[in-house]
């Protein structure tokens, strides 16, 4: 124990005496924090959570790849490690000390960023602070072990510079840390799933913005944990005290071993598209939470009043304020302005009697009718026309419930959707006559979902 503590104390002391550590671990992430917050007008809505995610991951990458990777190579190349070789010590305490030091150096950054985000930009305190901190620290040790593996297989400071920069840049730009994943073309989205940093970003987003638990992100957690373990074990095995002991070029392939958990997760994600879907949702969430000021419009309130020249302030997806003249400056309310001169604002229309699966019009070939597609399209069309809520009073139940989940979660764009249960009537009662006009191929399934024809009082009272 004494060597571990002594090594950790030494490492932490030396870390804080080095300008590069202060820069990569604190100054650079803070610079990016303020830059991203400004560029994205973080004071205007939920995007601050995304900024926090990005900056924390930038910090993790700097800490692990430069803090661990580059430093370990320098120590070996400068003959510093050599002195340890003749002491009764194995590589393990050195590697463990490096990892613990990384965590200790990172924690202040985490505290500073979360504090700034909350007090300066109004970020809501995270729902799951323990899950958040645990996941972030897991990210730190995982990326650090990748940095250490790189340092184990390179033969010179020059080589390590190249390799670490390549890894750092690709993780920085392809993982959603700087450019959101939703911006990428499909093939690049798939490639990004194989990169460890992507899973740190997505896990962090899910926990921070969606309040998810660690268990909900078990794939990312498992992959990061495995990479850490594999990385440390390999580092012990490949450890070199002196620069004279050179690694064969093929030894660099060991880096791939550390990335195996992410090859697995990546392949799974490429198939399931889970992360991509979630990041789209997150993106949509962010834009919905922005603050907007629609101004200079004519406004029908809905209670009979008409405002000839007014404004509406929308915050976090809800109407916060309606202005009759006296429209404030957008900066004073931290909002994005939307010019609506010459336009009219109405409350959203509500259609309380629809049959979503009924195709509008006539089809030449009924066998080509796809209820699922048609229902989704109809909901989008309603929204486009200004109908913000609809209620279905008779639709295939399964289809209705699944489309409702998609639209109300935000995954598909459409009007808010309410639905009733199956039609409750007697044989031959109103509604059953419609079945006769349905095409053969769907009549049976629609009957089963759509109609409820109880034969006895007890049947009627039971819940199906």
């Amino acid at each position, binding site marked *: 124990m004494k060597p571990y503590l*002594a090594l950790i104390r030494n490492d932490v*002391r030396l870390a804080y*005496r080095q300008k590069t550590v202060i820069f990569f671990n604190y100054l650079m992430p803070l610079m990016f924090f303020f830059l991203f917050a400004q560029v994205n007008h973080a004071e205007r809505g939920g995007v601050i959570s995304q900024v926090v995610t990005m900056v924390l991951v930038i910090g993790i990458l700097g800490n692990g790849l430069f803090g661990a990777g580059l430093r370990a190579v320098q120590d070996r190349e400068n*003959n510093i490690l*050599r002195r340890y070789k003749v002491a*009764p010590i194995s590589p393990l305490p050195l590697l463990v000390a490096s990892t613990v030091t990384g965590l200790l150096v990172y924690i202040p950054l985490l505290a500073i960023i979360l504090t700034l985000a909350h007090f300066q930009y109004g970020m809501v305190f995270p729902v799951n602070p323990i899950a958040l901190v645990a996941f972030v620290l897991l990210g730190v040790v995982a990326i650090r072990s990748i940095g250490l593996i790189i340092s184990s297989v390179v033969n010179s400071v020059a080589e390590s510079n190249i390799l670490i920069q390549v890894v750092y840049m690709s993780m920085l730009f392809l993982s959603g840390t700087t450019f959101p994943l939703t911006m990428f073309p499909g093939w690049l989205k798939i490639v990004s799933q194989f990169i460890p940093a992507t899973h740190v970003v997505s896990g962090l987003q899910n926990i921070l913005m969606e309040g998810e638990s660690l268990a909900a992100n078990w794939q990312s957690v498992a992959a990061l944990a495995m990479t850490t373990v594999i990385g440390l074990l390999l580092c012990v095995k490949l450890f070199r005290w002196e620069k004279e002991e050179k690694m064969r070029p093929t030894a660099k392939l060991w880096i791939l071993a550390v990335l195996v958990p992410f090859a697995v997760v990546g392949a799974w994600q490429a198939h399931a598209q889970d992360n991509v879907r979630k990041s789209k949702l997150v993106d949509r969430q962010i834009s919905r939470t922005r603050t907007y000021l629609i101004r200079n419009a004519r406004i029908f309130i809905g209670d009979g009043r008409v405002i000839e020249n007014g404004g509406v302030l929308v915050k976090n997806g809800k109407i916060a304020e309606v202005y009759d003249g006296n429209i404030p400056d957008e900066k004073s309310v931290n909002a994005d302005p939307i010019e609506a001169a010459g336009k009219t604002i109405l409350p959203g229309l509500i259609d309380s009697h629809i049959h979503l699966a009924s195709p509008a019009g006539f089809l030449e070939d009924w066998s080509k009718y796809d209820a699922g597609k048609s229902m989704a399209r109809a909901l989008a069309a309603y929204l486009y026309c200004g109908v913000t809520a609809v209620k279905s009073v008779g639709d295939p139940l399964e289809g209705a419930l699944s489309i409702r989940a998609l639209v109300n979660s935000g995954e598909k764009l459409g009007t808010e959707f309410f639905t009733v249960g199956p039609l409750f009537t007697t044989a031959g009662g109103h509604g059953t006559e419609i079945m006769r006009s349905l095409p053969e191929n769907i009549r049976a399934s629609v009957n089963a979902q759509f109609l409820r024809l109880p034969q006895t009082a007890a049947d009627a009272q039971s819940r199906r």
Partner: protein
Amino acid sequence: MTDNLAISVQDLHKSYGDFEAVRGLDFEVRTGEVFGLLGPNGAGKTTTVEILEGIRQRTSGDVRVLGFDPDKQKTLLKDRIGVCLQATNLPDKIKVIEALELFGSLYSRMLSPDMLLKRLQLEDKRNAFYSTLSGGQKQRLAIAMGMINDPSLLFLDEPTTGLDPQVRLEIHALIEEMRSEKRTIVMTTHYIEEAERLCDRVAIVDSGKVVAIGTPRELQDRSKGKSAIEIVCDASLTDRALPEFPEALSSTLSDDGRKLTVQSSRPARTLVEIVKWVDAQGIGLEDVHLSRPTLEDVFIELTGKRLRD
């Protein structure tokens, strides 16, 4: 293993693939002596020392260091020995006292860092950063680090290479001090006079084998190159008939006849006769020079190579 042997090496072999670096090395180091290893680069001395320190695995042979087998009892051995490597380096921003405390904590037994700093005259550099130390101070720190665990056996690899003469003398004094504390010291060096002055016994190593072993004086005496007496006269001796000087093996006269070089197995005796003769000729002596064979001469004779390229 006998009590008074710190190190015992028998028929040591080490191969790197096809290349045999050490081909049957035998020697012993007695407790409390300063033992020197002399030899050119590539002789296998570094490999041998690394094997003794427990950081390289031998191919075959019997090795005992402080009673331990360096391959099988590495950690126990490393705990008891002190090592001062050539070209030790420490992080720029570590303080002198921090370095001592750090490395001391790796051992089961630790001397007081402050006491060591005092002994090595580094007290006023206690809180200085490593990068601000001079070459001599860095070397003294390296020696302090080698002593932090109070070792009974110390390995010094080229302890004064690259240091200026004044510092070299200080370190020599230090080594002699350590010897008087009954510590066993094994040192490798390129400097002949250092080996001749400090070592109780010296082993000359070439191409993976010990070619000669003994006290510096013993080795010098083995040299076929005998002592050379050189005199410079104020007049030429060219036309004089030179007598056979006693114990003299050869006589050479320089071109201008004024410098006479005589090789002898008993230089003192020969010198007296030469001076008497020159005096009897009525010629004045301007200069007299006597040189003994050095270990380097021994080395060259035994191996045909120079110690330093």
